[in-house]
């Protein structure tokens, strides 16, 4: 699996270097270092070192992988976090936070309904007071305001 991650990074490095060589100048017209100098150095060294790491990885692949259950737990939390990111855009900070907490805690903290509901209500309220009232910071506004 680490190989896949490294290959993805290699792809990124090649793309990065490609733009550095195609779009950005190495030197400016006055003979100074241009905007492309650093990106070219970074891009080329990135490709070289990622390739080295990939070869090394292919030579000794004894890296043990996590169990399916570990990946399930991770995937579950990531999926919920991403849903939360989308919900934030749609329903705004308070509603999205409460929904996210109810669903996530229902799975993680199973069987303690009252405790979960209490957290899901109190956390957005606490955030509202901290950010909106005390710190005067903005909260994610709702695209579709719920009628509550």
């Amino acid at each position, binding site marked *: 699996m680490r190989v896949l991650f490294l290959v993805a*990074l290699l792809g990124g490095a090649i793309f990065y270097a490609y733009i550095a060589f195609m779009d950005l100048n190495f030197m400016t017209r006055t003979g100074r270092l241009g905007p492309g100098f*650093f990106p070219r150095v*970074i891009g080329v060294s*990135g490709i070289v070192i990622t390739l080295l790491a990939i070869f090394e990885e292919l030579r000794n692949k004894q890296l043990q992988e996590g169990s399916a259950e570990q990946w399930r737990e991770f995937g579950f939390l990531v999926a919920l976090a991403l849903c939360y990111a989308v919900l934030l855009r749609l329903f705004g900070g308070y509603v999205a936070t409460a929904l996210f907490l109810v669903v996530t805690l229902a799975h*993680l903290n199973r069987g303690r309904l009252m405790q979960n509901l209490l957290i899901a209500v109190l956390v957005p309220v606490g955030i509202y007071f901290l950010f909106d009232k005390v*710190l005067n910071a903005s909260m994610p506004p709702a695209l579709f305001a719920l009628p509550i």
Partner: protein
Amino acid sequence: MDIFSDLVMGLSVAITPINMLYLLIGALVGMVVGVIPGFGPSAGLAILLPVTFGMDPIGAIMMLAAIYYGAMYGGTITSILLNTPGESATVASTFDGFPLAKNGRAGPALVMQAAASFVGGTVGVILITILAPLFSQVSRSFGPPEYFLLAVMGMLTLIMMIGTNWKLGVISALIGFALGTVGVDLETGQGRYTFGSAELIGGIYFIPIAIGLFGLGELFFAFYCGLHKTGTGSIVQYDKEERFWPTAQDWISTKFTMVRGSILGFVVGVIPGAGATIASLMAYSMERSLSPTPEKFGKGEMAGLVAPETANNAASSGAMIPLLTLGIPGSASTAVLLAAFLLWGLRPGPLFMQQNPELAWGLIASMYLGNMALLAINIFAIPLFVQLIKVPYRVLGPIVVVICAMGTFSVHASFVETYLMFAAGIVGFFMRLYGFSPAALVLALVLGPLAEEALRQTLTISRGSFMIFVERTPSLWIIAVTIALVVLLPLLGRMGSRAKKVEQAGG
């Protein structure tokens, strides 16, 4: 005495009721962040940075600094009671801290770690007070060539100390450098990697990346490791013990340990890229090799807990020196602190102490007070933190996700940055899982633009000749120190990792 009057002036700035309140909040938050496994000072600073926006600069900086050094105090509580270090800088404290607790001496261990942290932190601040003005004097002769070399030195030492696989460390740093080049090139005005997007013209913003990597990424990793399923049942019950306070013997046998640990920790902390984790491991192995009874180490020797604790606190003070006098962060957490300074329109560097004496000395003075507050909190609020350790991770986790998201959004009210934070969280998880270094990425993201600008200025001064680096005395010195570090650090690192291995083998 100049320093003395400066310090008194700093105290007068720091001691106002509202600033004291911020300092206390910072110290408490730092402790809490330190106690939560997986979260160190960098995560705490990044997540809470947005919270300080409504404050005045001095209060905000004092509070953030208190979070930074407070985390070093908090991390040890779980090391002692649970054998789980709250963060990497307190790994060495588990070697003897947990055996002490198992032998029924958890109370004395907790008190001694608070005292050791206090000594380390305070010696560190005293050394800052004496050395920071001197360093500013020296660094005033620094020009772009020296800044470029210092940035290179910081990256080199950090990558060398990552240890396991240097290639992955370099790749992490390169990702950071690459992200740092996004945005309009300040010299030519040409856009780089913006792809016509208005959001990217100003570059990739630092805070979402730091919150994502250190906050969300660590959280995902903790869930992957199953931390939310393990209870805290194995916590050592210290309140049933007969003696809570350390004996006179504990103090007498560790008095030189504290001095040695503090000085070693501070020196290691000053070196860009080295930091508290290495300092604590080095102090531990130094103490064992100096001890007349090295066989007792790892079985509950007080000196084995005191040494790493003084060292990691002194190191986090030491790391403030390059930050304040050069404007160059040596670690991920000082990089976040630098970002905080910059957000307030403050540019740390050689002239910082001259141009902003109230702020600089106010901050230094506040660190004396902060360490005292932390000592008191540490001893008297231990039951409170034990309660906090008992809050299950499965409840804490979702709340951390919420705080990361809200914190990121509140900076610029930008959904793009919030999504960037989530993306950085997922990338951060894979980096942690596959042995990459999120800290190197974040440091490179901050140092990259600094280094690029410095290099281009250097070559403009020298009309394109690289010889300028060996023609200037300060830059020659920096090159010499860098070479010395490159030669010496692997040896020291081996010393630290040997200590780790011996402990693991010995139980």
